[in-house]
């Protein structure tokens, strides 16, 4: 089992992600420099708060290229929350910002009204079911291996990713009729919009699947 290395670029609270991986018995490391990232086998890119401050800080610390390199070298890379959003081309949160471009698509605000036209609460906070995106038959051979369809996980976000390639969508969720991108995957690149480290046993199962990749 290879080590899990979390990228600590000075944004937000990374402790709960670390605790979850340690609880799972993972060989857990933290990367603070491009050199640390280059030595890693398997990377976790967390992120909370505004997209621009996350990607800006990652860039300012000179880590963007190292993350892209790791992805190109086919090392497993898992983005969580804003970490997932950063995998995409662009985000429209507080202006248009470039992401890492490892997945094709944009990050946009969750519509402020439901499918029925009712205004609803933003951020979307709560336990919401993971559903199979159209065209996907099951979650075998994925990070959701052994997770039942409709299992509920904890979300807190105001923005959601819109992948260009529908094949990148591993799991969706819906909030008052608004379709959300819950998990994405393309090759060795994985993204989780919700918080697996705060989603009880289901979340731990997903992280364990990443540990065991």
């Amino acid at each position, binding site marked *: 089992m290879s080590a899990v290395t979390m990228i600590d670029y000075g944004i*937000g*609270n990374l*402790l*709960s992600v670390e*605790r*979850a991986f340690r*609880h799972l018995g993972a060989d857990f490391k933290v990367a603070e420099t491009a050199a640390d990232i280059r030595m890693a086998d398997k990377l976790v890119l967390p992120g*909370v*708060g*505004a997209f621009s401050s996350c990607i800006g800080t990652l860039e300012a610390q000179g880590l963007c290229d190292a993350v892209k390199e790791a992805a190109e070298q086919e090392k497993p890379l898992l983005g969580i929350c804003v970490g997932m959003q950063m995998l995409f081309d662009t985000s429209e949160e507080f202006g248009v910002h470039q992401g890492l471009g490892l997945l094709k698509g944009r990050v*946009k605000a*969750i*519509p*402020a009204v439901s*499918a029925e036209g009712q*205004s*609803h*609460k*933003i*951020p979307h*906070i*709560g*336990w*919401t079911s993971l559903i199979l995106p159209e065209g996907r038959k099951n979650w075998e051979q994925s990070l959701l291996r052994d997770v*039942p369809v*409709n*299992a*509920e996980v*904890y979300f*807190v*976000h*105001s923005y959601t990713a*819109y*992948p*260009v390639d*529908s094949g990148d*969508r591993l799991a969706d969720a*819906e*909030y*008052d*009729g*608004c*379709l959300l991108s819950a998990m994405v995957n393309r090759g060795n690149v994985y993204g989780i919009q919700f*918080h697996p*480290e*705060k*989603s*009880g*046993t*289901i*979340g*731990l199962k997903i992280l364990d699947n990443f540990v065991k990749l």
Partner: protein
Amino acid sequence: MWMAGYPPGNRDWSMSSNIRLIARLDIKGANLIKAVNLEGIRVIGDPNEHAKRYYAQGADELIYMDMVASLYGRNNLHDIVKATSDNIFIPITVGGGVRSVQDAEALLLAGADKVAVNTEATKNPGLITDIAQRFGAQCMVLSIEAKEVSPKKWCVYVDCGRENTGLDVLEWAKEGADRGAGEILLTSIDREGTRQGYDLELTRLVSDSVPVPVIASGGFGKPEDIRDAVKEGHADAVAVADALHYKRTTLPEIRQSVQTLGVSVRTVL
């Protein structure tokens, strides 16, 4: 490219969002306590024991509130939060005595996912924005302790329900959301510990006026109270405290009952 926001076809989207069932633990010193109308404190026991039980029972979240921190200007919660968050993998909101971005950071480093701010925010509303900008709005919970001072008029109280700020609850809730609070924890001082049900008028007034989720707190007596808080009060989440602490009921019982009453809650696997 898939449709922005809305699904294309003919799926059934009628199911409403899950309401969060939150176990609230009020703390004094090292102890879990129960307060009636935020006064008359009784010691119940070790908060961690209870927190573990609620996690095992499938609580959607936990709230820790240090009831006297702002009164005595100290903060005892760090050790409790640290011990809890090592083995509990659901969101934990911690409040009581948060006076600065540094206080918030210390609680986050101890293992909190969100911080709740009450007293200091009323004195220095800029703190709401500072915390939201530093850690994200999802992290900044505005805690409002409301008391009905005259019919249909609620004022914001601080320092454990002892002092009336004179602020109107509705105005304050809107201002808090404008300033960056990602969630509002709305406690009815009148209902706290009474088992008479949540204050539905108060909850609805606030919930319908702010764009962010509102947690109704204070007054749980029976599952119907949760249904009413959701259907009539438009609460996005409900907090339950002493009914759990004194084992009058359990979270699985509540979950099952409210489901039967037509409230969507998550299915704990």
